[in-house]
C-alpha cells in the first residue's frame, strides 16, 4: 500500500457512449482525444457501453497492458455504477478507491440534449476535474471487524422480553438488564388490554416464563447499565446491581427497550389534593385488585398534560382507548354508574378500536368534547363532593357534572434517568424526551450509531401490539450484523493529524456519531469503524488538523481549480 502511494499516477480514461445516450449528444471521440493530453493520463479509449461485460474486460485489459494505477470512467452517475467499476479495478489489482467517475450522462448529455457543443465542452471539463482528483487519490482499505453474537437488551418489559426471545430463537445470547426487581414493566401494572379485554397478566406471564426458562437469556434485575464502550460488534458493557456490585460483559448489539412511565399530574384538576381524583393507571390497579367501590358518577378527563401548546406537545396515543376500555369495565361492573369522557379529540385509530368506541357509546358512556382554551375545572363542595364544570362547545353552555370519581388520562413520558442512559450510549433524545430514531420514516427503529436500536415506549407512546411489532423489528435489525459475524466498515473516514491538533474538542462535540474522542495525549482520535465519513469535522476543525479521506481538501480544491481551467498550486 505504501509503495503504491509513491507510484507516479498512470491514469486510464474510459469514455462511454452509453449507446446514443451520451454519444448522441457529446462528441465522445473528441473527449477521448482531449483526455489523452491531460497530465498523468497514459491511456484513453471510447466504449459503446463501458458497463457491459466487454467494457469491463476493456478496463481490465487496459490496466494490465498500460500498467494503469488509476482508472476513470466517464459515463453515468457514481451513485449507480461506481460499485461495478470499482469491482473491475479490484479484480485487475487496482485498489478500488483509485477509481474515479465523470458524470457525463445524467449531469451532461441528458441535461443538455439540445446543446451538443456546450455538452462536449462540459464533458471535457468533467473529465479534467476527474483527472485532477484521480492524480491525488490514495488507496484505502475497509476495516473488517468481528461481531460478538450477543445482544444487550436494556429493559425487561414486554418490548425488551419479546426482542430477547426473538434473538435467542435465532441462536444469539442475550442479556436483559432491568432496573426493577421484577420483569414485566408497565404491562405488570395493567388489568385488561383493549380491544380484546384479555388479562394483561395472561399475555405477560407467558412471556416472562419463556424468558426465565430460556437458557441463552441471562436476566439481570435490579440492575442498571453504568458504562458502554466500543462500537457495533464490540460493545463492552458495565452494569451495576442494587448492592453496587458491578459486572462486565461483551455485546455485539444493543437494544433500548426502557419503556415509559406515566405523567403524574400533581396540581392539575385537584390531583394530589382530593383523594378521588386519580390517574387511569391508578384506576387500572383498583379494578385489578377488585377494590373499586361502586361510584355513582365517573368523569374521565383526556389529554391531561398532553398535546399542550408548549412542553409535552405530543399525543400519548394510548389514552383515548385506555379511557374507553376502563369506562367499559366500570359499565360492566356497575351498569347504572354514569361515566363521562371529556375529550378534546377522540382518536380510535387501530385495528378493532373504532368498534370498541361504538360499544362504549351503545353502553351509555357519555362523550363530551371540551376546548383546550376552556378546560374543565374540578371544584369541591362543602362535604367533599366534586363537581366537574365543563364548557360544552355544541350546547354553548357550561355543564356541571357531579362526580365521586375523577380519572385523569395522562401521557406516557420519558424516564428521568433516560438522559443519563442516552449519554452512556451516545444516542440522542428528541425534543419530547423520547429516544430519537435516525430517520422517522425509513429507519424508524435504528439509532444513527450502528448496532444500537430502540423499540417500545422508550421511543414514543404506543400500545402493546405496536410495542411488540417494534420489538420484532429491532430483533431482526440486530440479528443482521450478528448473523454476518464479520462486518466491513466505511473506508472513507476522517483522520486527525496529531501534530496539528490543539485538543480544542470542537470535533468531539459536533460529530453526530460520537466517533471522535480525545485520547490520553489530549488530541482528537477518530474511531474509524464508527465514523460515517460526512466530513463535517474536517470542514470545521479550527486547526484544520482533520483530513477527510477520499474527499481531502487538496483533492476537492484540485477539482475546483480544474473546473475553472486553472492548475492546482
Amino acid at each position, binding site marked *: 500500500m505504501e509503495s503504491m502511494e509513491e507510484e507516479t499516477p498512470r491514469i486510464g480514461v474510459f469514455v462511454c457512449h452509453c449507446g446514443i445516450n451520451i454519444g448522441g449528444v457529446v462528441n465522445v471521440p473528441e473527449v477521448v482525444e482531449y483526455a489523452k493530453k491531460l497530465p498523468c493520463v497514459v491511456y484513453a479509449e471510447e466504449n459503446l457501453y463501458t458497463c457491459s461485460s466487454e467494457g469491463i474486460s476493456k478496463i481490465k485489459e487496459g490496466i494490465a497492458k498500460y500498467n494503469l494505477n488509476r482508472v476513470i470512467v466517464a459515463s453515468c452517475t457514481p451513485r449507480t455504477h461506481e460499485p461495478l467499476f470499482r469491482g473491475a479495478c479490484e479484480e485487475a489489482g487496482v485498489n478500488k478507491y483509485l477509481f474515479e467517475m465523470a458524470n457525463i450522462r445524467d449531469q451532461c448529455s441528458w441535461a*443538455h440534449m439540445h446543446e451538443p457543443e456546450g455538452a462536449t465542452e*462540459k464533458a471535457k471539463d468533467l473529465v479534467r*476535474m476527474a483527472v485532477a482528483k484521480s492524480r491525488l487519490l490514495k488507496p484505502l482499505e475497509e476495516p473488517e471487524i468481528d461481531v460478538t453474537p450477543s445482544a444487550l437488551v436494556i429493559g425487561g418489559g414486554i418490548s425488551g422480553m419479546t426482542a430477547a426471545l426473538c434473538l435467542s430463537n435465532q441462536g444469539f445470547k442475550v442479556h436483559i438488564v432491568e432496573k426493577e426487581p421484577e420483569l414485566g414493566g408497565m404491562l405488570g401494572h395493567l388489568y385488561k388490554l383493549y380491544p380484546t379485554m384479555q388479562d394483561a397478566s395472561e399475555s405477560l406471564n407467558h412471556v416472562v416464563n419463556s424468558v426465565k426458562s430460556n437458557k441463552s437469556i441471562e436476566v439481570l434485575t435490579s440492575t442498571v447499565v453504568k458504562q458502554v464502550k466500543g462500537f457495533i460488534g464490540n460493545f463492552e458493557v458495565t452494569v451495576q446491581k442494587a448492592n453496587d456490585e458491578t459486572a462486565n460483559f461483551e455485546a455485539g448489539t444493543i437494544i433500548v427497550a426502557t419503556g415509559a412511565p406515566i405523567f403524574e399530574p400533581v396540581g392539575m384538576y385537584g390531583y394530589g389534593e382530593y383523594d378521588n381524583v386519580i390517574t387511569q393507571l391508578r384506576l387500572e390497579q383498583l379494578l385489578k385488585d377488585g377494590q373499586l367501590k361502586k361510584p355513582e358518577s365517573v368523569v374521565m378527563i383526556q389529554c391531561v398534560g398532553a398535546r399542550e401548546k408548549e412542553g409535552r406537545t405530543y399525543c400519548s396515543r394510548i389514552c383515548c382507548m385506555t379511557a374507553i376500555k376502563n369506562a367499559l369495565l366500570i359499565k360492566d361492573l356497575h351498569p347504572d354508574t354514569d361515566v363521562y369522557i371529556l375529550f378534546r379529540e377522540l382518536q380510535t385509530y387501530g385495528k378493532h378500536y373504532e368498534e370498541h368506541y361504538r360499544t362504549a357509546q351503545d353502553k351509555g358512556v357519555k362523550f363530551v368534547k371540551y376546548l383546550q382554551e376552556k378546560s374543565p375545572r374540578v371544584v369541591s363542595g362543602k362535604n367533599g363532593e366534586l363537581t366537574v364544570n365543563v364548557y360544552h362547545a355544541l350546547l354553548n353552555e357550561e355543564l356541571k357534572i357531579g362526580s365521586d370519581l375523577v380519572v385523569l388520562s395522562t401521557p406516557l413520558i420519558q424516564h428521568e434517568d433516560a438522559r443519563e442512559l442516552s449519554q452512556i450510549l451516545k444516542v440522542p433524545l428528541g425534543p419530547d424526551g423520547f429516544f430519537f430514531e435516525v430517520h422517522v420514516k425509513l429507519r424508524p427503529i435504528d439509532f*444513527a450509531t450502528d448496532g444500537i436500536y430502540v423499540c417500545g415506549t422508550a421511543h414514543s407512546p404506543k400500545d402493546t401490539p405496536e410495542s411488540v411489532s417494534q420489538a420484532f423489528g429491532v430483533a431482526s435489525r440486530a440479528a443482521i450484523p450478528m448473523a454476518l459475524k464479520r462486518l466491513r466498515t466505511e473506508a472513507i473516514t476522517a483522520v486527525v493529524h496529531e501534530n496539528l491538533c490543539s485538543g480544542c474538542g470542537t470535533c468531539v*462535540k459536533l460529530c*453526530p456519531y460520537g466517533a471522535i474522542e480525545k485520547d490520553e495525549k489530549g488530541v482528537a482520535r477518530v474511531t474509524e469503524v464508527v465514523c460515517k465519513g*460526512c*466530513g463535517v469535522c*474536517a470542514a470545521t476543525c479550527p486547526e484544520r488538523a482533520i483530513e477527510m479521506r477520499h474527499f481531502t481538501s487538496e483533492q476537492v480544491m484540485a477539482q475546483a481549480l480544474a473546473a475553472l481551467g486553472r492548475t492546482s498550486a
Partner: protein
Amino acid sequence: MTFEPRIVGFLCNWCSYAGADLAGVSRISYPTNIRIIRLMCSGRVEPVIVLETLAQGADGVLVMGCHIGDCHYISGNLYAERKINVLKKLLARTSLEVGRLRLEWVSASEGGRFAELVKDFVEQIKALGPSPLAGDKPDKNILAGVLAAKAAAEDFRLRLLVGREKTMIDDGNVYGEKVSEEELDKILNEVIDTEFVRNRIYLLVKEKPLSVKELSERLDLDSKTVLRHVVVMRRRGLITVDRVEGTSPLYTALEVGR
C-alpha cells in the same frame, strides 16, 4: 461574445447530487454553466475552499445539500448553513458581490427544482457580470479583500467560533448558559470584523512595510482603529516594526507566530 459564467457546484451525495442526476434522467434541461463537485455531505464544504474558488475566478459558487431534517448525516446541512452564513458575512466585507455565493436545499426527488435553481443562479450571475477575479488580470484590490477573507476563514479564532456555534445554542457554553441566536450573531459579526481587518493589514504589510496612516488610507478606516489592531497584532507576534520613517514606524509581517 456573450458572457457565459463559470459556476462551481458543491453538492452532497445523498440528496442534491441525486437531484441533479434526476434532472438528467427526467431530461429536464438547464444551462451548461455548472461544474459539479460531489461531496458526501454539504457539511464537508470547507469555507477556505469556497473562498479560494472565488479568488481563482469562479463567477459563482452554488452549494447544495439535503433539506433541513433530511441530512443523511443527521445534522451536516445545519453546519453547512452556518458556514455559508459566515462566508456571506466575510464576502460582504470584501468588494466581491455576496450574490456570487448561494446555498440551496435540493432533495433526491427534486430534479425539476435543481434545474430551476441552476437556471436562476446562472441568471443571477449573468446580471452581476463576470467575476472581477476571472481571467489573467484580476482586480488587485478585490482580490486582496477575498484573500483576507480566506485568511480569516483559515484562522483558528473564527473557525472555533463557527465550530461551536451550534453547540452554544443547543447546549450552552461551559457554564451551561444558552446563547441566543441574536447574541451569537452579534459576537460573530464582531469577530468577523476584527479578523477581516487584521488579515487585510497582515496581507498589506506582507507586501511592503506600511505606516498606520498608510494602512488607514488603504483600508478606508480611521487611524485609531487601525492602531488598535496593530498593537494587538504586534503583541501576538504577527507583525513588527520594520523601520521608522520620520516619526512613523513602518510595520511588516512576520512569518512565524501564525
